[in-house]
């Protein structure tokens, strides 16, 4: 690494860490101030509070890292410009890309870190936060050291099946009052979304270790050929052809927003044959958005850098550039929010919706760089 690159990178990193620290303090402060009476009322210990906020930190980091990176880059490079260091570098033969390499590399690195955190750490951390809040802060009653009994468990499972379970006890792996509706995969030319093929109701179910055993089972098959008719069968006990295991049942509680990339991809794959194109579109937007997160930092940094590195040297340049970074951030987030909303609403294809804001800002950055530096 060149000396100049190391020099600017160290400064960028320092400002970035301090900016993120400020955001974290504010986030935690606002949360603590809002929930203080609950903490005191339920006598929450320092250990629990510490764990709660420790699990909150990855989420805050992913939310604030992008803007903090932009601020850091803008401050450092505008300072360098004010001190005529940029002019000196350009006079020595370095072009825009060579001078901004540390900033762009930093932006890519931050984007990658945010991507990794968002996929691997944040979902689990947010689950822990919720659990801590429910059981240790709000003190919702639950058996100690046991998993909660889940009420009204609903999910879209494999083989186009809708599951509704009145109660599921993960400790005994027992289900109560189960309803499963299986839909037939529609063909491409079928207009209707799905056709009910089979309905299974059972009073209880138990995991045997290899399969689910349902008791007092009624299986209703909706036959259409040659004549539409309903065939009903009763069983006292029956081993069911259900591929989901107890662990899968537990996982289904996950909010789509708390799924990582692979879980969301699997969920979409399960859903793909349902014909519910609207819902699939919305999920695809979420999926592609997870993968496109690094582009946000890169797009903003590349857009703002030319402004920090050029223009008249003014005393208040740092503040003006900070203001510009803020404005650019707002525009980017606004553009992204609208495009994603259009994507979820089916007005734009999912990939186009996700790529709209990065493409606009990267394109605008290209134009500005060409105008000011080439």
């Amino acid at each position, binding site marked *: 690494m060149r000396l100049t690159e190391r020099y600017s990178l160290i400064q960028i990193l320092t400002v970035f860490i301090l900016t993120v620290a400020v955001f974290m303090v504010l986030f935690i402060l606002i949360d603590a101030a809002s929930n203080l009476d609950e903490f005191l009322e339920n006598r929450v210990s320092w250990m629990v509070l510490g764990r709660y906020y420790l699990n909150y930190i990855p989420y805050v980091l992913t939310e604030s890292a992008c803007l903090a990176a932009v601020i850091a880059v803008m401050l450092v490079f505008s300072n360098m410009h004010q001190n005529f260091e940029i002019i000196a570098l350009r006079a020595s033969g370095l072009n825009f890309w060579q001078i901004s390499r540390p900033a762009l590399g930093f932006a890519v690195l931050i984007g990658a870190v945010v991507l990794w955190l968002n996929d691997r750490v944040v979902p689990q951390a947010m689950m822990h936060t919720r659990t801590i809040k429910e059981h240790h802060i709000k003190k919702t009653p639950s058996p100690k050291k046991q998993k909660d009994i889940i009420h*009204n468990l609903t999910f879209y499972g494999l083989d186009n099946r809708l599951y*509704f379970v009145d109660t599921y006890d993960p400790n005994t792996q027992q289900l109560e009052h189960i*309803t499963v*509706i299986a839909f037939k995969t529609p063909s491409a030319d079928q207009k209707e979304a799905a056709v009910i093929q089979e309905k299974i109701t059972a009073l209880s179910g138990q995991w045997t270790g290899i399969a689910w055993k349902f008791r007092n089972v009624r299986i209703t098959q909706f036959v259409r050929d040659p004549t539409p008719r309903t065939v009903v069968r009763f069983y006292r006990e029956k081993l069911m052809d259900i591929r989901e295991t107890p662990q899968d049942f537990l996982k289904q509680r996950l909010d789509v927003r708390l799924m990582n990339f692979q879980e969301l991809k699997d969920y979409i794959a399960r859903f793909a044959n349902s014909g*519910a194109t609207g*819902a699939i579109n919305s999920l695809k937007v979420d999926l592609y958005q997870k993968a496109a997160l690094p582009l946000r930092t890169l797009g903003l940094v590349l857009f703002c850098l030319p402004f920090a590195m050029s223009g008249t040297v003014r005393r208040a340049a740092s*503040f003006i550039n900070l203001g510009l970074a803020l404005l650019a951030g707002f525009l980017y*987030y606004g553009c992204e929010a609208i495009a994603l909303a259009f994507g979820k609403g089916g007005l734009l294809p999912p990939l186009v919706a996700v790529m709209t804001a990065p493409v606009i800002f990267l394109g605008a950055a290209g134009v500005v760089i060409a105008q000011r530096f080439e």
Partner: protein
Amino acid sequence: MRIVRQYLLNEYLAPFGIALGFLTSVFLMGYLFQLAHWVINKGIDARSLLVMFVYYIPVLVGYTLPFAVLAGLFMAFHRLGHDNELIALRTAGVSPLKLMQPFLALGLLLSLLLLWLNTQIIPEAYHQQKIRQKNLGLSNPAALLEAGVFIKDFEGQILFIHRIEDNLLYDVTIYQPQPEGRPTRTIVARMGEFVPLPDKNQILIKLMDGASDEVDAANPNNFYKLDFKTMFITLTVNQNRPQTVNKKPKAMSLRELQDEIHHLESRLVDTTPLVTELHRKLAWSFSPIVFIWLGFPLAVTAHRRSRQTQIVWALAVGIGYYLASLAAEGLSLEKKAPVGWILWAPNLTAFVVGGWLNWSINRRR
């Protein structure tokens, strides 16, 4: 001196404004996604959402304004120190105390502004935000219908709809959990048409070509099945009526807090949370002037160090003050210290420490 005063204030206002805008905007940006989704996909009135957005701003400013005061102070004096203007002023006989005067005046002004915000605006904004958040689903109950997800927003029903086009629903499944451990009733329909009834917080659905069945709890081998061509079902939004939302102490103005305290005291009811909140609103309102009193000597002496060190100083002062305030609030709520009055302890401590620091820098000539 007037020119110097004007000049210093001008140097301060820009970084203060940027810091305030920046800190507040960071929190607002995350909100944009939700707003865009509600407007574009849920059909919720943009004006209502904009009002909600606007109500959120004063709540944030209540937290970010004191930090912005500190940040502006350190940034302004870093620049002045870097250009040796501070040395020039001191050489000309302008004492640090004289330099501080315009900032103290500004701090007092900002404290009065924050007092007005904390006692009048923020409580109302907080309350209105809560009401509108609860109302979001009620003003347009149809916005709660979403294809491909399990909808649990209606009393006693869980819905799953494969596809929605305008007001038409395709392949609808409705689960109706029954009380007392009875088996769930399931309704399945090929098609449905809905009509929102926002005045009643309901949606009327006309289900077509479907069946409803329910197992006989007494004899699981039997079940009741009803095939229908059309069936009407009413979905009631699972919400309390917003007008019954009780105001928390945070959502009460100063006058409301005082009235409530008097009312409860006359009935010999414990008023600790209300008294604590009243003192918190007042004490926190003076944080701008406290930060200037404490931050000024630190900013003046720290200007020689790097900007990063100054940011650390600013953070340390801010965090220290707010941690102390939270601790004081906790002690007050627990009645382990004089209820309410303990919340002034951080201000008093900062005043004493700031006084000592200011005396130190003025002593050095």
